[in-house]
């Protein structure tokens, strides 16, 4: 607005004061110059005057007063009653301002020149824009990074108090044998009050320390019916929660914005029950029992097997001793037998040797040796006979003997004996020694015969 100041007020430094009527007129001009656009939102507070219909167009983030001339409304071709509270509509138009007058009140509104019921395409386009924005901000990933306990003790559930989703969810939980706590955060799930109520419920549930997961669910419907779950504020709230949220909104084909930001998106409340309590408690109990049995067997088996092994080892030395004793006895028997056998063989051998020796001795005695010995004997006998006195006597010598027949080998002995015996080869004679001559016998002595 480029109003020129009439004069400057001392003190504030602001332009003016202006005439309010003129200012209001300029404001109207300025607003009408703004760009014409389309708005989408929910109709509330519909009213009619003689010339126009008025209402508020609202969503979870805000509202704006709207008006449409009745002739424009008729041209829009809406059926009677189509412009009603709760209707999701698209309006075309721009800002307008009624400056009022001396008696009339001023009024600001969005002057719609056309209105139509919002179609699936409008909602999808709006949803896609939001989806793109939230994805770009990374809000789809936050919940998915949260840890989801397999066995929560308590879960929060946001749903309609009278909806079928509540029943289906409970049935799903019970089928898993789960008997924890369900904290219900009942909220409307379809109208402009739904998104704020759902947002408050998830926040309150997340604030409770015992709640380990939150389920947000409702049954099927059109995208317009499910629109609360595409609410930007709600989805931003869910994305920032530190408790994992499981969404199950509408049917499988529906994909609301809360499904994108939630930790897990499920197609039905039953699936949501399985996602909120991932552990099948019935199967887990059976599995745990098997584990207990395995552990018991492992413990007993480890001790039992090793006990048997130890027992075997303990018996080992005794067995080894017995085995060695047996071997020893066998050796003793073998040695004894061998010894007896050896003695017998040795005796036989010695006997054989003795026989051979005796045989040899006998042979020696009876063989050439004997003849040699006989020859030697004969030679000895010849030599002996050669030295016999008789052989000398035979040659003419006589042996002088005393009375005692002992040989007298000297003249003195013979003289001393006086009487002697002379033994010749053919016999002996007695003689008496009369004189004693020379011993050389040359006739000097006289001998008695």
């Amino acid at each position, binding site marked *: 607005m480029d109003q020129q100041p009439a004069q400057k007020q001392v003190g504030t430094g602001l332009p003016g004061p202006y005439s309010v009527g003129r200012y209001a007129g300029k404001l109207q001009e300025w607003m009408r110059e703004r760009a014409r656009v389309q708005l989408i939102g929910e109709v509330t507070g519909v009213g009619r005057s003689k010339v126009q219909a008025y209402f508020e167009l609202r969503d979870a983030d805000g509202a704006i007063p709207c008006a449409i001339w009745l002739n424009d409304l008729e041209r829009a071709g809406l059926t009677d009653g189509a412009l009603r509270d709760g209707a999701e509509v698209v309006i075309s138009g721009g800002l307008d301002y009624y400056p009022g007058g001396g008696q009339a009140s001023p009024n600001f509104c969005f002057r719609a020149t056309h209105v139509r019921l919002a179609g699936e395409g409008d909602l999808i386009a709006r949803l896609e824009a939001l989806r793109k924005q939230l994805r770009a901000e990374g809000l789809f990933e936050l919940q998915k990074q949260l840890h989801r*306990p*397999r*066995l929560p*003790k308590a879960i*929060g559930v946001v749903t309609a108090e009278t909806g079928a989703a509540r029943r289906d969810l*409970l049935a799903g*939980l*019970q089928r898993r*044998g*789960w*008997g*924890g*706590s*369900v*904290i*219900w*955060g*009942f909220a409307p799930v379809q109208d402009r009050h739904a998104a704020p109520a759902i947002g408050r*419920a998830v926040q*309150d*549930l997340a604030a*409770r320390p015992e709640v380990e997961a939150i389920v947000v669910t409702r049954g099927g419907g059109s995208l317009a019916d499910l629109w609360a779950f595409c609410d930007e504020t709600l989805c931003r709230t869910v994305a920032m929660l530190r408790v994992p949220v499981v969404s199950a909104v509408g049917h499988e084909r529906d994909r609301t914005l809360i499904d994108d930001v939630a930790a897990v998106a499920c197609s039905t409340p039953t699936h949501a029950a399985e996602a909120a309590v991932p*552990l099948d*408690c019935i199967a*887990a*109990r059976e599995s*745990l029992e098997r*584990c*207990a049995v*395995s*552990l*018991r067997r*492992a*413990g007993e088996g*480890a*001790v039992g097997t*090793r006990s048997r092994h130890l027992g075997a080892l303990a018996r080992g030395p005794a067995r080894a001793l017995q085995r060695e004793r047996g071997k020893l006895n066998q050796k003793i028997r073998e040695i004894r037998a061998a010894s007896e056998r050896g003695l017998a063989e040795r005796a036989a051998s010695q006997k054989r040797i003795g026989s051979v020796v005796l045989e040899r001795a006998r042979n020696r005695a009876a063989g050439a040796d004997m003849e040699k010995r006989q020859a030697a004997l004969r030679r000895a006998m010849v030599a002996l006979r050669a030295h016999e006195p008789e052989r000398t006597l035979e040659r003419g010598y006589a042996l002088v003997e005393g009375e005692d027949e002992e040989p007298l080998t000297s003249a003195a002995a013979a003289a001393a004996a006086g009487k002697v015996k002379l033994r010749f080869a053919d016999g002996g004679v007695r003689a008496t020694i009369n004189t004693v001559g020379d011993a050389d016998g040359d006739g000097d002595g006289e001998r008695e015969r």
Partner: protein
Amino acid sequence: MATETVSVSDKPESYEAAVERLEEIIDRLDSGQAGLRETLDLCKEGRELVKYCAAELDEVGEGLKELRLDDLAAKLEVGSEPS
């Protein structure tokens, strides 16, 4: 012999952690590679884990309890009012 030192007195962080450790123990025992001392230690630890898991399951085995957030919030408000 495993070199990992296990303290059976440590309470598991969660049911998942307990089950995961229990599966490790069963696998190790099934492998037949654990010695006697390790086997006995693992069995002891395993029994503690089974006990813990059974207690956890028992906590959610006594029938589903339904509470209303509004009622809990109301009780909280009453409890927080100065007497």
